[in-house]
């Protein structure tokens, strides 16, 4: 019924937007757009996965909302999720319905876009185990669900991957993929590629061994598991594995680059973003940091943590791998998004991945081979001196290495990196990457007594604070060809929300004190802003409603690692709370309060 209506509105309502039939919505959009190109593949107006397309551009070719009229945006409707922890998820739009998922307890709501006020069609409560909250690292977030072939797929904090009938909200299958008893949780949004639901675990802080699993989209059965550490057979490294750099070649490096058996609890989880290139038939993703955090006890490269992998989606087989931050010292997870685009570099078109990395560099990497073409800092970095493009090595600054019982000051970027999970967007129209990120440095000092599971120890006191310039956040437009900033907006608080950019040359993002902003993608001018009820750490999306008009949606609701001070009620007097992030966020409780709410904006009639 809703689907019929959707089709009808398409025919009637879509005068200005070229569009495909709704039935082809599952087909991936072309991933090989050229920078600066003015022609876009057709956009069906939906938003079926957090990253929008397999290339992870978070770009919409809709133009009804543009630089000329964005100032007229207004609230169309709101919807309370009923939960107060950090809301990091992207709303999803398919078949005239909007789907949202809350943080723990991971309730899923379906809202009817065909009716005024977006009434609730159904809700689903997976009832995850309460104990999962006790093992989650940094707030009990969920980064979103995904729509494919009439079903919704999402993960729960207590390690279930669940498929729902998108029309009815009834579960189709439910697979337990991890174990909270050993510290595993799941916070990432899955990606569905060629009938496989790709899912990774969180919990590197708890001595978890990381993995990425592929589940059969129809049955929920695990088809393959690729571990982040251990022998080649566990990492799914075989004869076709051809790393570009010598440092990443060898047998069973996931064992030999660790002290004996340490790889079994070595981290290398996967709680971030996966991209897919249908032409090369490769998925791309990076693994998280090695554990334990103290690097002295794990001499070696600690493979395959903080490693970018290219794999075959059918088998999981690794085709190449590049370890971005060998022997990580600073918790620089490698789980950020990679955007699949083609760029003119050195006089020819290169198939690349663009990755704004936690260690502070925007990497441009040949996605056919894993060769690093450029790696330029997108903020102030002193924990390393750069990347040697010949060897692929990160040139680590040993003066900034943490040492037990010693104070090491001004390590930049801080542990959350120059940019954490919050995804950037790429506009093929401007040729620019839009990067929401933080500007934080940290001191590490020993001497703080701590106690876990009946065991006392001296904790490393981590204190984070604003980096050079005094602003804690940045929204930045970046030219991936020149490797330089084009413009940037300084934000007082870290920019922990994702972003979206449109063919109307408007980019959207939110601030941790609750402002939702529309920005001119060409020059950074603020076109419009609206203060939502709580701080924003979610991912904005834009879509064409059944009425043919363009809308923008965002979940507001403070939390996450930096926002835990408010959402989890941490004690601001304890500067080491939230692993030292609380020190940088002491003023947050005076700037926002918690509460999850969906906001939908439009131009109105």
């Amino acid at each position, binding site marked *: 019924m809703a689907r019929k209506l959707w089709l009808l509105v398409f025919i009637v309502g879509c005068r200005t937007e070229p569009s495909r039939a709704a039935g082809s919505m599952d087909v991936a959009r072309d991933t090989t757009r050229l920078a600066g190109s003015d022609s876009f593949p057709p956009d069906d107006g939906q938003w079926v996965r957090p990253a929008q397309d397999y290339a992870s551009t978070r770009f919409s070719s809709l133009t009804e909302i543009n630089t000329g009229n964005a100032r007229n945006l207004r609230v169309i409707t709101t919807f309370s999720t009923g939960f107060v922890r950090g809301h990091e998820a992207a709303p999803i739009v398919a078949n005239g319905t909007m789907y949202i998922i809350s943080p723990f307890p991971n309730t899923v709501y379906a809202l009817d876009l065909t009716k005024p006020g977006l009434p609730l069609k159904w809700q689903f409560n997976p009832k995850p185990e309460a*104990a999962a*909250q*006790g*093992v*989650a*690292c940094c707030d009990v977030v969920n980064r979103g669900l995904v729509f494919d072939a009439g079903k919704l797929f999402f993960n729960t904090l207590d390690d279930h991957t669940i498929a729902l009938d998108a029309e009815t909200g009834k579960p189709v299958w439910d697979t337990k993929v991890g*174990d*909270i*008893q*050993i*510290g595993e949780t799941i916070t990432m949004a899955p990606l569905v590629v060629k009938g496989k639901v790709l899912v990774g675990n969180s919990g590197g*802080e*708890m*001595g978890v061994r990381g993995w990425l699993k592929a589940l059969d989209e129809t049955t929920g059965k695990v088809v393959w598991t690729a571990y982040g550490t251990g022998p080649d057979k566990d990492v799914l490294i075989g004869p076709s594995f051809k790393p570009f750099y010598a440092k990443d070649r060898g047998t069973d490096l996931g064992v030999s680059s660790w*002290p*004996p*058996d*340490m790889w079994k*609890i070595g981290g290398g989880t996967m709680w971030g973003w996966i991209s897919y290139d249908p032409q090369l038939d490769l998925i791309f993703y990076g693994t998280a940091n090695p*554990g*334990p*955090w*103290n690097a*002295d*006890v*794990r*001499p070696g490269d600690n493979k395959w943590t903080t490693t970018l992998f290219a794999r075959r989606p059918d088998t999981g087989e690794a085709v190449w791998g590049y370890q971005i931050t060998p022997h990580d010292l600073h*918790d620089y997870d490698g789980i950020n998004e990679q955007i699949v685009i083609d760029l003119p570099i050195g006089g020819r078109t290169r198939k690349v991945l663009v990755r704004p990395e936690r260690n502070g560099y925007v990497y441009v990497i040949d996605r056919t081979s894993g060769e690093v073409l450029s790696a330029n800092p997108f903020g102030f970095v002193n924990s390393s001196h750069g990347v040697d493009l010949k060897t692929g090595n990160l040139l680590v600054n040993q003066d900034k290495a*943490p040492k*037990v*019982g*010693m104070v090491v000051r001004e390590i930049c970027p801080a542990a959350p990196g120059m940019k954490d999970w919050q995804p950037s967007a790429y506009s093929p129209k401007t040729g620019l990457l839009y990067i929401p990120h933080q500007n934080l440095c940290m001191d*590490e000092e*020993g*001497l*703080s*007594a*701590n*106690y*876990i*599971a*009946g*065991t*006392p*120890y*001296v*904790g*490393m*006191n*981590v204190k984070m604070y604003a980096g050079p310039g005094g602003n804690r956040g940045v929204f930045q437009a970046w030219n991936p060809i020149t490797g330089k900033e084009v413009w940037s907006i300084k934000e007082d608080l870290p920019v922990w929300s994702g972003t979206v950019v449109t063919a109307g040359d408007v980019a959207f993002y939110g601030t941790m004190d609750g402002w939702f902003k529309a920005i001119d993608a060409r020059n950074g001018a603020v076109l419009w802003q609206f203060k939502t009820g709580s701080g924003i750490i979610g991912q904005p999306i834009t879509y064409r409603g059944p009425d043919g008009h363009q809308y923008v949606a965002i979940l507001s609701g403070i939390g996450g690692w930096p926002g835990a001070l408010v959402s989890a*009620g*941490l*004690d601001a*007097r*304890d*500067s*080491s*709370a939230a*692993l*030292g992030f609380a020190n940088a966020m002491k003023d947050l409780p005076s700037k926002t309060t918690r509460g999850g709410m969906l906001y939908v904006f439009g131009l109105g009639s």
Partner: protein
Amino acid sequence: MSTARLSVLTCAAAALGIVGVCIHAARERAYAATPLRICADPNNLPFSNQARGGFENSIATLVAGELHRPVEYFWWAQRRGFVRNTLNTGDCQLVVGTASGMEMLSTTRPYYKSTYVFLTRHDRNLAIRSFDDPALRTLKVGVQLIGDDFANTPPVHALANRGIVKNVVGFSVYGDYAEPNPPARIVDAVARGDVDVAIVWGPLAGYFAQRAAVPLDVVPVSPRLDLPYLPFVFDIAMGVRRGDSAFRQQLDEIIVRRKPSIDSILIAYGVPLVDIRAQTQRNQ
């Protein structure tokens, strides 16, 4: 029960006269009858468990007795977020065991001091007493990993500082929570011979050594402190919510007054107490 009935009667009798005093008296009684709510791990002997079989359970009962209040528990695994999800939510008001001076709560005066120990099978005759014993370079050494805050148990750092890494086996302090007392797996590994020596926090080693299938030796480590600042001996205190200073003071008084009883509980559980009997304990 009888107290409650008495208070109702007293209040009814006084209803026409001194109402304010009556309400005050009722509140006092209500407070006295309010259970002492303990924040504790349901699965972590020798400290505490849901069957109330740990020494922290016994000490909680002792403290509640001093306060004339019954004991109730709010159970939560003592991992990251423990204080935030227990004390700070108001679900409970007392953590019986925590490191003295820990920043996220307000700690009482310490009521015991223990030490990390070398745990070995008695039949191996290894007699390791110091981190500088050359045998630690070749033996298989078990340690516990925490993996938080760039931190770890002090023995991990002590060995790493001496370049002892390749022969060290890490056990996650969190273990598998589906099993009983997950941090105790490292003791099982010594008893089985999976590792030659484990360097473990004293209370855990002392308790399980008493119950192991084979005799185990528990020897306090030396030195007590590695420079620049890495202690192996820790003061353990009770913890209350920050700002709950009147309650903390009450506890301080109880700790002083009942020290002998607290000591005998700890000794019964095999806790190696520094300054009381730091000599080698052996379970025959």
